[in-house]
């Protein structure tokens, strides 16, 4: 319940931000941080709570982005209608990959490589067909109106991405205190024990990849609406896959607030890098790689692990005195 209150307080604070902050730069930074947190939380649900590490989460992101773009450009759908359709499609692609890989017991690095391969296949497909704009990509028609999910002000986008990110956080919160969440974490920790205790390992994993794919696809829709453009590399390239996994690893894998903290930390880091090193091409990726190595080596439980360690140490000291 305390966590729920914290989520609500965070949501209220961020939602009120445009009342006090008018700088487009600052609001954009908050929007991109929340967007990264959404991708990170989506990955975290499968990777952190479910223990299935994906290297190709762009496959869901890109599917959501293309679904939104294609439905608008080719079929004239309203973007708000395209959003749930894209989310559903993300879940369908999740089910497809999940059935193929979990049915055959793919785990660990094999699963990671399969997801990577799927993202590549989807990239090549979207690069081939005129339907998806091939190599040129798709640009959605500009029509600045809230009714078409294109806001004139950043505040509108901020509220939408905040809503999506909070929804993802609520899913993670539910995982921490529901039967399904307990089953998912049991499967992560030991599949054989979980099966022995009556858990249908296949279905539990399938559910996780579908939820994760759906949330990731929502991120893709947001991207298209915010930048009005998508192409194969942006949609299915490794950039999104890396961002989605780096955020929770930095923040704390398998935790509720890890992706939020990780997204904030990474964005701060990216800004600092830009400030001190200028716009050297690829410098941020270099820094990200360095951060990943350092985190895995010294802080495998991320920022949340660090906080928990501090809290435990304080608790122990209090315990000693008592």
């Amino acid at each position, binding site marked *: 319940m305390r966590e729920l209150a914290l989520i609500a307080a965070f949501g209220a604070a961020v939602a009120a931000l445009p009342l006090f902050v008018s700088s487009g730069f600052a609001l954009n930074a908050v929007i991109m941080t929340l967007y990264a947190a959404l991708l990170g939380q989506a990955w975290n649900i499968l990777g952190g709570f479910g223990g299935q590490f994906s290297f190709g989460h762009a496959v869901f992101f890109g599917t959501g982005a293309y679904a939104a773009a294609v439905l608008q450009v080719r079929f004239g759908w309203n973007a708000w209608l395209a959003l749930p359709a894209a989310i559903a499609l993300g879940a369908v692609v999740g089910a497809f990959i999940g059935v193929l890989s979990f049915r055959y017991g793919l785990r660990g690095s094999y699963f990671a490589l399969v997801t990577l391969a799927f993202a590549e296949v989807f990239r090549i497909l979207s690069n081939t067909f005129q339907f998806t704009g091939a190599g040129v990509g798709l640009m959605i028609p500009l029509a600045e109106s809230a009714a078409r999910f294109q806001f004139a002000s950043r505040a509108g986008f901020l509220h939408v991405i905040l809503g999506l990110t909070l929804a993802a956080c609520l899913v993670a919160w539910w995982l921490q*205190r529901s*039967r399904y969440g307990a089953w998912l974490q*049991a499967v992560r920790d030991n599949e054989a*024990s979980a099966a*022995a*205790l*009556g*858990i*249908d390992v296949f279905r539990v994993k399938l559910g996780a990849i579908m939820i994760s794919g759906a949330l990731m696809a929502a991120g893709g829709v947001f991207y298209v609406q915010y930048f009005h453009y998508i192409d194969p590399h942006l949609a299915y390239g490794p950039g999104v896959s890396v961002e989605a996994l780096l955020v929770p690893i930095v923040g704390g894998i*398998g935790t509720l607030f890890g992706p939020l903290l990780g997204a904030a930390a990474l964005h701060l880091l990216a800004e600092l890098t830009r400030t001190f090193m200028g716009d050297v091409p690829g410098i941020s990726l270099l820094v990200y790689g360095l951060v990943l190595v350092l985190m895995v080596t010294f802080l495998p439980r991320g920022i949340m692990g660090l906080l928990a360690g501090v809290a435990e140490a304080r608790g122990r000291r209090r315990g000693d005195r008592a």
Partner: protein
Amino acid sequence: MPRHEGDGGAIVLDVRDLSIGFGGVKALDGVSLRLDEGVIASLIGPNGAGKSTLFALISGFLVPERGRVIFCGEDITGLPPHVICRRGMVRTFQIVQPFAAQTVRENIAVGAYLRHRSPREALARAEAVARRVGLAGQLDKLASSLTIAGRKRLELARALATEPKLLLLDEVLAGLNPQEIAEMLPVIRALRDGEGGRGGVTVLMIEHVMQAVMDLSEHTWVLNQGRLIAEGAPAAIGNDPQVIEAYLGRGTAERLRRVRT
């Protein structure tokens, strides 16, 4: 569904002619056994005899090449482990692997969720089960911080929380010191006897600790090189020096005599 024409007590588990091989090696060859409801029975035999393989076949982790497993009158051969667990048979593992990132309470609740959907009920059930196995004082500890004895109890508690009719225990006493074993014996006995109006659980245990086999079990099967070579009351088996020398190794007869006196 094939039914067993019983003679008195109901048959919980009826294993018929189970066989499986691994790359030419016959791990189990025509094993048949019948387990009466409400007893504690044991399965003994030297290392590599096929005891854990037999458990894996019964509980659905392996599919037999030949033979059937009948549980409470229903053929469960080839069903996946989680379905068998839902039907009321649960196993523990020799190498205990708690869900390390979770507390003892959460670990046990994973088992309890099988029959209780609501987290509040499952956590309450977990507490009750913890009391039965003597883990009540450690409910909020991380599972990874438990001692070996604690982990063995946790393994037992998780299985028990699924509210089984039949409990397969794979060496729950291995690695415990004599005092810890002595503390564990009444726990296992209490499972069979039931508690607070609840029916007891039938227990089949793989065990190397002969003291426990003698103290607890009413019936014992001896497995050697994939075949059942003897069965009966543990004392009777223990009294047969030839069986002991041949299948449990030299010197076991002497140890057993000491245990019994």
